[in-house]
Each structure stands twice: as structure tokens, then as C-alpha cells.
């Protein structure tokens, strides 16, 4: 599960910090997961519902890719992890705002029906 993985990574960062440098394989894995998270955020209408978070995720992904090109594996892992968690945040915010939007629409419809019906629709 991605979120659990993020937590484990966060804990790992907190405890062991960057003392143990990531190797190329770790960096590739992190980068791949970050790319998936950002693409998911884009598909979930992140640009509409959480543009700031999506921008952050995309910026971190670009930085991670540059670090990878420069063979800076630890930096790649750090920025990829940031891109991934920002992508996840974008998805969560998109879901929240979509739900708020849909609920507000239904609420308006219910209010209109209550006005139309005698006694506000109460039996």
C-alpha cells in the first residue's frame, strides 16, 4: 500500500536519515513510484481541484529526474519521495473537492424540493 510505504520511508528518513545513501536501484524504484503517483494525480483532475499540490509534485519529480541524470542517487530518492507524497496528497484533495462539489449539488436539489413540497416534504 502506497501510504504505508510512504510512512515507512518517512520513518526510515527520520531514523536513519540520509546517512545510508541510496543506490541506483533504490533511486530507480523511487522515481518509478513517484512517476506513477504524479500521473495518477493528473488523471484525478489534480489540475482542477488541487493545482498547488500538483505543481509541487510535478516540480519535485522534475528535480528527482535531474538528480537521477546526474547520478545523485540519494537526492533522487529524496525528491522522488517528495513527489510521490505530494502526488498522493493531490489525489486525496481531488477526491475531497469532488465529493464536496457533488454533495453541494445534491443539497441544492434537496432544498429546492423541500421548498416545492407542502410542509417541506415532511409527512
Amino acid at each position, binding site marked *: 500500500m502506497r501510504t504505508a510505504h*510512504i510512512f515507512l520511508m518517512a520513518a526510515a528518513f*527520520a531514523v536513519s536519515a540520509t546517512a545510508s545513501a541510496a543506490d541506483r536501484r533504490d533511486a530507480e524504484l523511487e522515481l518509478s513510484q513517484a512517476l506513477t503517483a504524479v500521473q495518477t494525480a493528473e488523471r484525478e483532475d489534480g489540475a482542477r481541484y488541487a493545482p498547488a499540490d500538483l505543481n509541487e509534485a510535478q516540480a519535485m519529480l522534475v528535480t528527482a529526474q535531474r538528480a537521477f541524470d546526474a547520478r545523485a542517487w540519494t537526492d533522487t530518492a529524496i525528491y522522488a519521495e517528495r513527489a510521490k507524497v505530494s502526488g498522493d496528497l493531490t489525489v*486525496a*484533495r481531488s477526491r475531497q473537492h469532488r465529493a464536496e462539489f*457533488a454533495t453541494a*449539488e445534491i443539497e441544492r436539489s434537496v432544498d429546492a424540493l423541500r421548498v416545492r413540497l407542502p410542509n417541506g416534504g415532511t409527512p
Partner: protein
Amino acid sequence: MNLRPHHLLVSSALALAISSCATVPPGPPPEVVRLQTQLDRLHADPRIVDNAGPELNNADAAVDTLARNARSLDPASLQQGVYIADRLVQIAEASALARYEERRGTQLGIEREQLLAANDRATRVIVATEPTRVVTTRTEPTRVVTTTTEQARVVTSEPPRVVRTTGELMPLGRAELLALQEQLPGMESRLDVRGLVVRFGDFQFEPNRATLMPAAERSLDTLANALRAQPDTRVSIETYTGINDASLGVERARAVSDYLDARGIDPSRIDARAAPVPAGSGIVADRHVDVVIRRN
């Protein structure tokens, strides 16, 4: 005063140690305290607590780990840990609020269906088939003006008619559509010149998507059952969106068509299309899908 060099060194070391202790306050750094405060706020919010998923546990664990280890971390590692934990806290909040709104939307949807059913009961007129033929008059088309004496004649071969309890006469097809409407409680429907029109509002789809909401699927299940019992009817699916949302309209029409198809309605009975003219002002709230049912 007999002050020796090693006394001075010891005094200096002690002074340095005391001053360094004074500049490092006990407890976690301020940025971690801020995260703990945010978490406390989430835990005090019933909308969050009642809808919390694993995300809140993850955020709790991440902040707790940071708080316990923050003082032993180098600045870069602390910064990274704070960044990740901060996002985890925000994810926990957004996910819980999303669940809260989704549950509230489901409850409101049920209430809306009940209100629509109540509205139907308040306005619906019971339809009954008239047992005998009706004799009525009909004017011939104007092309027969030369036979003015035959312009009005008695027609005795009219199709059977039905009568509403109000006494209003109506063609059989219209009456059957009214009977069909009776089988669609809780759905927004009306009869107009196109036939029986069942409306699915924008809120019955996921925002800006063609994915049906659960309430819309329940309505389509009911509609499909009614349509299976009326094989002589045809269905047109008309979607109304803004000019810039034409492709969304096509996708929504296809979604409704596919859903009915999956529920056993022959696709040859269904004609799905996006309406070419934007509805109303073209604002999102005006978007809707009309399922128009008429007799063959």
C-alpha cells in the same frame, strides 16, 4: 585569588555546557510541534475522527517517530521528515473529509429520492383505460377544401383512449407512458412532446466525468426493469452540456446507454446522442442527461 590555568579551562567548559543546554530547549523542534498541533486538531474534529482511515494512523506514526528522533537528526534529514509527515497529515485530513462528504452525499441522495417520491404522490394522476371507444370529430386537411361539406365528419375508428381521473382524454401511447412513469418512483420525470423524459442531473455523475454515481445507477436499474416490461418502447438518450463539454456529453450518453445495455435493454432500442445546443446558460449546474422514452 589563586586562579590556575586548569581551573579556568574547567570553568569555561562548564559555562559552555550550561549555555549550550540553555539554547537547546527540551522537546521536539517547533516544526514538529506544529505537526503535533495539527494532528491534535484533526483528532478533535468529529468529521475526521468518524471517517478516519489508515491515513490518520500513518500520520500519527510519522509525527510520533519524528518527535522522538528529531533532536538526533541532521538538518537535512529533519527537513525531509517534516516534509513527508506534513503531507501525511494533510492526506489524512483530506481523505477523512472526502469520506465525510461522500457519506453526506449518499444520505442526501436518499432524502432526495424520498422527496421526489413524495412529490410524485402529490402531483401524479392515476391513469385508467377507457373501456369503450370514443366518438369524436376531426377536421380534414386543408387540401380537401373543394369538398367543404365533407370537411367535418364523424370518425368512429379512433384507437382506444384512456381517461385520467380528472376526466382528461389522451392517446393510448401517452397513457402508457404515464403508466410507465408510475413505475419510476423517486426519479425526476415528466411527459412532454418528446415522450416520457427521465432526467439525470449533473450531480448524478462524478464531477466532470462520465462515471455514474450510485444513486443514478439505482435509478437506471429501476428504469431498465420498467423498459424490459415495455418492449414496444424506444429510448433516446440526450445529453446537454456546455459548448466546451461536448465530448463529456457524448461520454455520458454512452455511459447511460452502456448501463442500460448491460441491464438487458436491446441496444437497437437505444439511440444515444449529445444534444447540439448547450442547455440554459451553459453553466455546469445546467448539465443533464434526458432519457426520452416513446412508443414505437
